[in-house]
Structures are given as C-alpha cells and as structure tokens.
C-alpha cells in the first residue's frame, strides 16, 4: 500500500483524491474523479479512495470494478425493466382464464393470439418471471447492490470521519457555492457562529476555522435501503425452501371432513357451509351500477369451517384422533389462521350433486309407478343395489361429469366432480338370465336395445356447494417485512434529509465561505441567506451556473 501523506500531515490511503483531513486535492490522483484545475471538485464520494478505482490488476479487481459501477447497475435495472414488461404482453401461464378452450400453454397461446402467441410460447415468455435468465438478472442486480454499496460506504465513512474543520483553500474555492468577504468584524464572525447553531448545524471549530454540518446521517440512506433490498432478495431465496414456504389447495364439500394437504396429515378441515351473498339489486345507492353489471353483484364469499388437529399421527393409516383447533369463517380479506397455517377463500363450486334418487318402473306402465326406489351417493356410489323382490341394479359405469366424446361417439367424464352425473345401469331380474342395460343421466334415459322390460328414472337429487381454499404456511413473511421496513427507513433517510456543510475559513481580515450539499441546493442557499443577513458577508455564488466550463463531467464515475 502506497500511503499518501498530505502537507497537513494526514496520511491518506492509496487512491485518495482529496485529502481526508484538509480536502487538498492530491495532485497525481485528480484524474480518478475527473477533476481538473478549471473544474469544481467532484464531491460525490468526498474524493475518497475507492477500491474499484484504485486496483485493477487481478481478476477479482476487475469483477469488483465491473459490479461497483453505477453505470452497470443502471443498465441492469433497465434490462430488468424491459424484460418485466415483456411478460405482460399476453397473460402469464398461471393467469390463463379458467374458461379457455385449452389451458395447456402449448395450445392456448397460438389458439388465442395466433402467430404472436406461438412465438410468445416458444420464447418461454409465458412463464417469464420464474425463468432462469430472469432470476439471474435479479441476482446480478443483487450482486451489484452489494458491491456498489461496500465500495462506496467504507471509504465514504472514513472520509467523513477524518474531515477537519480546517480546510485547504483550494478545497473551498473549488466548491460549487463560494464567496470571499473582506473586512469582517468580530461581531459578524460571532453572529455567523450563533446563526449556524440556531439553524441547527453541528459546529466544529479549529483555530477559527469552522465546519458546520447537518444531516450527515442522510448520506447513509442509500446503503441502508440497499441492505433492505438485499434482505428481500435473501427472503425470496429462503422462500424456495419447502420448510419455510408451503402452498397447497383443497376443495372441500359442505359437510365433508378431510385432511388438509401440505400439513403431513396433521390437520383436518370440516366444511360446514359455503355462502355467497349478493348485493340487494334494489339498493338505492347501487342499483344503477348493479343493473349495468347485469343485475348481479357479489357481496361475500364465505366458508364456515372447523379445523381439527390429529393428535395421533404416529401410526400411519390409523384412525385419526381429532381435536378441534379452531372454528371460524373464511372470507376474502379474512383468512383463517392457525398454528402458522393460513386458509384463504379462493374458489367455489355451487350446486354440485350430492346424491341422486332413482325409481325402477316397468317400461309399459303408463303411470310409471315405482317398483323400487334407491339413492346413489355420488361421492362414493355403491356398485350394487339389491331388492327384496329379487331385482338387482348394478352400476356398470359412472360418469361424474358426463360428456359425449364426439370423435369416438363414446360417453366420457370430464373430471371426477359430480357436476353432470350419468350412469350405465345393469338391471338383473329373476326372470332373465342376461341383464338389461340402460343409460340414465340428467335429461337422458336411454334404452339402447329398445326391448327393456324395466326403466330407470331420476326422482330426486340433492346438491351442495364446494369451497376452494388455498393453504399457506410462510415463515419468510417477517423477513420480507423487515427488508421492506429497512428499505423504507433508508430511502426516507436518504431522500427527505440532506447532508449540508458550510465551511468558514478566516483569511486575514476577511472570510472565505464555501458550502456543499448532496442535494437540494435551493435549501442550503436559503440557509446561508438567513445566516449572513445583517452582516458584511458576501452571499455565496453558485459557481456551477456562473462558470459554464464547470459542468460536472458525467462519466467520471468509472
């Protein structure tokens, strides 16, 4: 390390641009911050020695240098910005509408958006935000955040700690705000000091040289908010672990009790009732809007549930011993929470069939008088229904959600949900050896042979609602909250306060006055106006506007 000793006696680390103590420009290092004799001093990082600008030999130096550049950081932000917008051109795969003809991305995008959709799918933009390259982009931003912050924070902190009230004259006259006043009385000097204190500056004095400073803590704002962002990024990495974050979904019928998925069989849920409430369409206030919305406006979706805990999970397959943990209602905006889990109202199915009752009658009976009645539980139908008179009905095929496959001319079931149940029954009678086959469903009663002696007809059915509940357990939330809080503290600290400094440098009978702020020059000028009012001191001149050649070189940051 080649330490640099300034004429004021302070020893600076290698690569220092402005002496940490007195601010005198260190001749051989001025190029680093792009300073030259004619320009104002670049005060961005106090002319401190930054690793990225000092060392450039090893590969680590080069990587460090790359990521510590704000230019690179901004480019990464811009790339992430543009990339993010791409994902909103068409809906992401998770938002493909329920009623789409096909929810398979391979089909949906081309089907819906033509050639653009096809390209969108082929480029993988349908799942952009969890793609490897998007994640790498965010990770690079994270690395840039860390390196940028360390590279600047450490030397900046050192420089601000080392600064002395007594500054080199060059340091003052190359500040943006500067004035020279001659013949300043003792009273004026005293008044100046008093005013600085009154304006709540922290005043330090050294041989008559004054450094008045306030709001230094706002310089740490950017580093604090970057820490907040890093915590958020770390939290999102933690969230990939199933121990810390679990998501699942459960459909539960009214009256049904079942295990909650994702809880390792530990918790059970019972759905007592699902409720939809509507707004009153005659409500004075809302009737126009409701009419415009087609006469239907939902007010509430609610599941009334009981959560149980299985106190005996030790034996797999054993009958669970359930103990009530919580009873309550789940509504939108009101999840039910228990033991670290949360249940959210997130879907429903109204009027699913619970059971269906049939009668058996003779085909040639005009009154269709029932010979026998039976009821099929649609959640778990029995295969055979025997009657005392020797008749026997066997369920040969059960289609819970029946449709006719046009391509094959065959009946099929779209899903296992009993939304449109249909059956193929076999009716065995003592008189006949081979069974009669009939097909029965809602609005259908088909006798394929046309020679059946018996017919089956639906007499009644019962329905229930089904609640769709999402199950979550997320231990990373406090970490995200902490990150967000720290970010807010940092960004407010950095944005709503400024670091202002005023230097008073006695020179003979007169005074040199210089001032610097990291932002809000308008504000510091007002401070100085108030401070010198009624004295012989000259108002500082904004040297950036007076000397056009003083424009801060824009790419001196590298």
């Amino acid at each position, binding site marked *: 390390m080649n330490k640099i000793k300034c004429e004021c006696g302070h020893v600076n680390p290698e690569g220092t641009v402005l002496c940490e103590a007195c601010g005198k420009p260190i001749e051989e290092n001025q190029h680093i911050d792009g300073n030259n004799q004619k320009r104002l001093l670049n005060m961005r990082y106090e002319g401190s020695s930054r690793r990225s600008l000092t060392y450039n030999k090893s590969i680590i130096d080069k990587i460090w240098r790359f990521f510590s550049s704000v230019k690179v950081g901004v480019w990464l*932000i811009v790339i992430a*910005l543009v990339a993010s917008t791409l994902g*909103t051109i068409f*809906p992401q795969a998770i938002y493909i509408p329920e009623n789409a003809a096909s929810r398979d991305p391979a089909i949906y995008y081309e089907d819906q958006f033509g050639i653009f959709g096809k390209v969108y799918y082929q480029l993988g933009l349908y799942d952009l935000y969890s793609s490897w390259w998007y994640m790498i982009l965010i990770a690079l931003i994270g690395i840039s955040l860390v390196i940028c912050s360390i590279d600047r924070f450490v030397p900046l902190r050192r420089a601000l700690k080392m600064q002395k009230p007594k500054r080199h004259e060059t340091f003052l006259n190359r500040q943006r705000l500067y004035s020279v006043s001659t013949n300043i009385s003792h009273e004026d000097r005293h008044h100046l000091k008093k005013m600085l204190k009154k304006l709540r500056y922290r005043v330090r004095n050294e041989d008559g040289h004054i450094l008045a400073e306030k709001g230094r803590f706002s310089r740490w704002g950017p580093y604090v908010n970057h820490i907040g962002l890093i915590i958020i990024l770390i939290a999102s990495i933690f969230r990939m672990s199933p121990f810390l974050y679990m998501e699942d979904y459960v459909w539960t019928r009214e009256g049904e009790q079942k295990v909650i998925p994702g809880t390792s069989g530990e918790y059970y849920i019972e759905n007592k009732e699902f409720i939809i409430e509507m707004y009153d369409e005659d409500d004075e*206030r809302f009737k126009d*809007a409701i009419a415009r919305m087609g006469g239907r406006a939902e007010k509430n979706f609610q599941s009334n549930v009981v959560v149980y805990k299985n106190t005996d999970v030790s034996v797999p397959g054993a009958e669970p011993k359930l103990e009530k943990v919580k009873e309550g209602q789940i509504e939108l*905006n009101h999840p039910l929470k228990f033991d670290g889990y949360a249940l959210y109202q997130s879907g429903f199915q109204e009027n699913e069939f619970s059971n269906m009752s049939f009668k058996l009658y003779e085909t040639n009976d005009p009154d269709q008088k029932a010979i026998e009645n039976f009821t099929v539980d649609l959640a778990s139908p029995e295969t055979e229904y025997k009657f005392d008179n020797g008749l026997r009905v066997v369920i040969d095929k059960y289609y819970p959600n029946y449709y006719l496959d046009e391509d094959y001319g065959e009946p099929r079931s779209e899903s296992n949900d009993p939304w449109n149940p249909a059956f193929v029954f076999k009716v065995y009678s003592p008189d006949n050896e081979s069974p009669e086959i009939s097909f029965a469903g809602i609005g259908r009663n088909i006798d394929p042979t046309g020679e059946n002696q018996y017919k089956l007809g639906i007499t009644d059915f019962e329905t229930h609602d089904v609640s769709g509940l999402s199950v979550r357990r997320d231990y990373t939330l406090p970490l995200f909250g902490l990150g967000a809080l720290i970010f807010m503290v940092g960004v407010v600290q950095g*944005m709503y306060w400024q670091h202002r400094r005023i230097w008073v440098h006695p020179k003979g009978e007169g005074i040199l006055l210089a001032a610097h702020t990291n932002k809000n020059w*308008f504000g510091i000028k007002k401070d100085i106006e108030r401070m010198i009012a009624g004295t012989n001191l000259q108002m500082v001149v904004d040297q950036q506007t007076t000397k056009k050649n003083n424009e801060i070189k824009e790419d001196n940051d590298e």
Partner: protein
Amino acid sequence: MSNLLTLSSTMLYTAFAFYSFATIMFGVTLTDKNKQKKIGISGMIAVSLTIIGLFAQLTYFVTRWIAAGHAPVSNMFEFMTSLGMGIVIAFIIIYFIYRLNILGLFALPVALILIAYASMFPTELSPLQPSLQSPWLYIHITTVALSQGILGISFVAGLIYLIKQIDQNKRNKGNMWLEIVLFSLIVCIGFISSTTTFNALDYQAEFEYPSGESILTAEYNLPAIAAPKDSVLITEGVQDALFEAPGWLQGSNAAKKFNTLLWSLIVGLILYGFLRLLLRKRIGAAIQPLLKNINADLVDEVTYRAVAIGFPLFTLGALIFASIWAQIAWDRFWGWDPKEVWALVTWFFYAAFLHLRLSRGWHGEKSSWLAVGGFAIIMFNLIVVNLVIAGLHSYA
C-alpha cells in the same frame, strides 16, 4: 342519501371550476413584472383559488365516501379523480416550498384533464366486490394517488424545463418529441370533447359480432369508424362503420376502445392542426417565450425534488401496502399480475432516474425527459393496463 350524492357531484364540479379559474390566474402571473421569487398578487389569488378548489374536492371525496359507505377509490372514475386531487395536493406542497407560479399553470391543467377524463367512465356509486372490502383499499390507493400526484409534479416541472430549454430554431429530435408529448395532451382533450359531445347527443349504435362460439353485442357511444371484426350493425338510422377493426385486437370490447382511440386521435389532430395554423409554429415554440423569466435551474430542482419526495411514497403505497393487502386478500403478496409488474416497472424506472441523477450527474434536459417518461409509464399502467391488458385489477 341521494342529497348527499348530489352535493358530492356538485362539489366536484365546483372544484373543477375553481381549478380552471386558478389556471387562468396562474396565466396572469406570467405578466407580472416582479422577479420570480415573489408570488405577487395574482399568484396569491391563483393559489387561493386552488386551495378553495381542493377543499371543494375534499368535500366531494368525503361526502361520496359517506354516501357509498366505502372510500371513493374503487373504480376508474373514482381513482382518476383522486389522482387529479393528488396532483393538486402535491402542487400546493411544492408551491409553498418553491413559490413557483409557473408550476400551477401546467399542473392544474393536468389535474383538470385527469378529472375530465375520469368522468368519461361510469360515475354512479358501485358496490364493493368482496376482494376490495378491506381498509387497505383506502390505505393503499390514497397513498398511490398521492405519490403519483407528486411524481406528476415532476412531470410538469420536466415539461416546463423542456419547453423553456429546447432549441426551437429549427426542427430537431428534441422539439419533435416535445411536440409529441404536447400532442398527446391534446389527444386527451380530443377524447374528452368527442365523448362529451356524443354523450350529450345520446348517440348509440349496437353491433353484433362473433366471439368464439357465441355472439356478442358491442354498444358504441361514438359513431363507429371501426366496427368489430365480422360484425353486423343492428341499430337502425345510424351510419355504418367505415371499416372493421383488425382481428388481433382481442380484449373485451377491444374494437369499441379502438374506435374511441381513433376518435380521440382524429379530434386531437384537428385541434392540433387548428392550433398550428393559428400559431404558425410548433406549440412548444409558441409557449417558449412565455417562460423567458423562469429560472430553469430552479425548475430542474423541482423535477428532482418531486421524485425524491414521491419515490419513497410510491414504494410504500404501490409496492409495500399493495403487497400486504395482496397477502391478505389473495394469499400471495406478489403474483406478477400485469398491474403489479407495471408498478415494479415504474419503480425500476424512478430508481434508474435517481441513480442517473445522483451518481452520474444527469441534470437538466436528460433528467426532465426521464421525468416525462416516468409519468408516461404511470399513465400507461393506469389506462392501458386497466383497459387493455386483462388482469386482477380491471375494475372498469
């Protein structure tokens, strides 16, 4: 109850009138002989009118809240008026820091356009859908409206800076883009005037068009320039469309929105052409001399200061409060819904703005362009994402 609602809408009109008077008075301040720092009598009057207007609008807000039983920020009409109010509040705050009359001359018209644009959407009270029934509705939305209002002031200041500073001697990239920005403001006026006119005439035309298996009906309130693809006009006694909208416009009612856009552009172009004929120069060039006494550095400072104040507030309202609510309502704090993505894009954009300004010295013109761009993104998120890209936030 209906009395309260009548009072509420009267108050909105009152606010609109006061903002308009205030704009005129801010225009008068340009003729003041005094140097910029003094507000002057006309400035005092102008800002007083603005404050009275704000009180009227706050009365609208509170009475509508009471009438509906929920904060009036739940649909496009209500949000856009709140955003207009956000801009006015932000303007008043910044005005009392910097005492810049010229800001009012530009900020209030932006607020006026927003409020007028808002009233093109259905204005009746609407019931709150279950997902919106939460105190987070007003916590989240009012913070967003205020922060976007403040960022709107940075747009206004950026625009003033550009109009003042951009070289208008001969055509160049800068003054062309500036004309485009000004033209887009005129298109908004085109939208408002064509919609208002045909609403007053009670114009209506219905088209039937196929969509997949089913036949849908589109109700046009502006004469159809572009009808839905493969549609049939079913209203009698109205002019049929000139042509059909392209088939790749897929969203709900896309053809109708496309038609409205065409109308706005055409009326906007007519207005713009008329202005150009009248002024015989670029609009930017025509306004420029009015700004000769303005301190450009101070305006530039306002641009930046507004972002510095608005950015933390935007983060809080549009990302943090939004996430907390999303976690409660939708079981996830972040879900890459288009509106969420565009809020993130806005945030990225202003983060880049701040880094470029603080670390790379982007001042003046560059930073003003960024301020204009940032507000364009906010408007895109509000208008295009809500109305064109379907998502969880499509409430209008």
